[in-house]
């Protein structure tokens, strides 16, 4: 297998790893990387609309410090941006809303921003997102939609829409998003990128605006599996400021990324995950399964009920978080979230308790499946990117609302916090689509190894920026 040529570290196709190596090796200055990044953002934003905040002065200052020998680390000089629900010191934490702009400015960066910067990375800004993360589309009535760089008339996917769009457009090589029901995996699929939703509780959520405490996860979107592993490793570790953050020791994934798939038992999710989508979603899974030599099908039992339970918990917890604002400032919500939050907060408490009890029942049954398989494959989205503004879509011959159904295949997985890597398949003449590589809890490494294998084989790849 030939070694891929290194990208010019100043180009929009350069990966985080390539940039960090170039800076560490003295081939390029961090200041030059940041200058090129800011120029690219300025050029792309009129069409892509991925950013809501650009912290140029801060980034330039930090690049100068790195060039002066400070802040060495594995991500030295790597520009990155974060979904605007991450706290950025000195800015209000928008979380996609208009309301939060009137709130206090963050006094400190979110935990993961600090961890990436501790590893040498450079924050360049905050990214557009669906309001309060209740979204799979990347659309936002206050800030406009983030547009899919593959086809700017299409949705980026959401709610981490700006994160997907910024990386796919080559504005930054690395972005952080959040994923409650699919909000990292959906934009990764629709924009054709690698995305990692780690195990629930694996990465600290401290200093991020919550949506649904029971399922909120944070994680990276990037152009390569190496960048996912590099950034994930830099962000791991217990944080007392997040009550669900695990105290398990960090388990670096990068050293074993290239070990291949020997010894990994890969299966295909059957039943629920084989219907209700367009043919390209299932073709993508078949392509990946073939490349991995996977033929066995397993059933994640009661996945439809899991999706229903995830929906109920999301609606009620999300609605409850926003109840004070729904009472006092309903007119300032995005119309696409307001009435969903209002309906959610009125749902019966008995449903919520049942959904939480079912969650434990479902977890036990799914973990039994993982006694017989290390990896389970499933579609990431039921279709490629819908048109901007599209309200309904036809899935499996049935008309369904886009907003509620782009996460059909992601919701039953995040519901019990399993780690997932999305591997993107580029479809010549068509739009990209992703496949979920699902592992048992805390086994991000296996999912990353499988994605890296697919990348090496040329089956999965980010598109040219």
């Amino acid at each position: 297998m030939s070694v891929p040529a290194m990208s010019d570290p100043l180009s929009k196709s350069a990966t985080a790893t390539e940039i960090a190596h170039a800076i560490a090796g003295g081939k390029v200055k961090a200041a030059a990387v940041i200058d090129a990044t800011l120029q690219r953002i300025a050029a792309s934003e009129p069409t892509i609309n991925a950013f809501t905040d650009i912290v140029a002065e801060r980034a330039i200052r930090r690049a100068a410090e790195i060039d002066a020998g400070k802040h060495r680390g594995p991500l030295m000089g790597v520009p990155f941006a974060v979904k605007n629900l991450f706290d950025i010191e000195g800015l209000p934490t928008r979380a996609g809303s208009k309301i939060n702009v009137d709130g206090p400015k963050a006094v400190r960066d979110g935990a993961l921003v600090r961890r990436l910067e501790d590893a040498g990375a450079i924050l360049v800004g905050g990214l557009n997102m669906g309001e309060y993360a209740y979204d799979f589309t990347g659309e936002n009535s206050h800030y406009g939609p983030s547009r899919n760089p593959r086809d700017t008339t299409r949705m980026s996917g959401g709610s981490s829409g700006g994160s997907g769009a910024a990386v796919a457009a080559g504005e930054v090589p690395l972005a952080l998003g959040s994923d409650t029901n699919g909000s990292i995996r959906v934009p990764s699929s629709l924009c054709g990128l690698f995305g990692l939703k780690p195990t629930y509780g694996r990465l600290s959520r401290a200093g991020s605006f919550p949506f649904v405490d029971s399922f909120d996860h944070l994680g990276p979107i990037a152009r390569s599996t190496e960048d996912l592993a590099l950034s994930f490793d830099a962000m791991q570790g217990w944080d007392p400021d997040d009550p669900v953050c695990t105290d398990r020791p960090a388990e670096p994934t990068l050293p074993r990324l290239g070990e291949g798939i020997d010894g990994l038992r890969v299966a295909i999710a059957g039943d629920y995950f084989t219907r209700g989508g367009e043919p390209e979603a299932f073709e993508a899974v078949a392509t990946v399964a073939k490349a991995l030599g996977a033929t066995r099908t397993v059933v994640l039992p009661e996945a439809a009920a899991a999706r229903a339970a995830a929906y109920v918990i999301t609606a009620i917890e999300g609605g409850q978080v926003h109840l004070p604002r729904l009472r006092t400032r309903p007119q300032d919500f995005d119309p696409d979230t307001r009435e969903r939050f209002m309906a959610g907060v009125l749902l019966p408490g008995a449903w919520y308790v049942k959904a939480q009890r079912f969650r434990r029942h479902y977890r036990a049954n799914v973990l039994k499946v993982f006694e017989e398989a290390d990896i389970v494959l499933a579609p990431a989205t039921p279709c490629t990117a819908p048109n901007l503004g599209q309200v309904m879509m036809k899935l499996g011959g049935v008309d369904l609302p886009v907003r509620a159904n782009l996460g059909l295949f992601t919701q039953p997985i995040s519901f019990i916090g399993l780690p997932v890597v999305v591997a993107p398949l580029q479809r010549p003449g068509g739009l990209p689509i992703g496949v979920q590589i699902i592992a048992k809890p805390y086994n991000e490494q296996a999912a990353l190894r499988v994605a890296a294998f697919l990348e090496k084989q040329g089956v999965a790849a980010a598109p040219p920026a």
Partner: protein
Amino acid sequence: MADEKPDVARLVDEAAKALGLPIAPEYRANVILNYERSLMIARPLLEVDLDDDLMSGPVFRP
């Protein structure tokens, strides 16, 4: 009767009153629509039988 359809409009109006959530007339129809959609999406969960001794998995640690 499990199959008897609830009066969702009334349910929304009364629950909103009980919760102290004013719903402006221009939002009401969409709240009702979303509530009806929730009833449909939640159905697979509501049809599951769970053992009495099944507890949820809270993280709260005193």
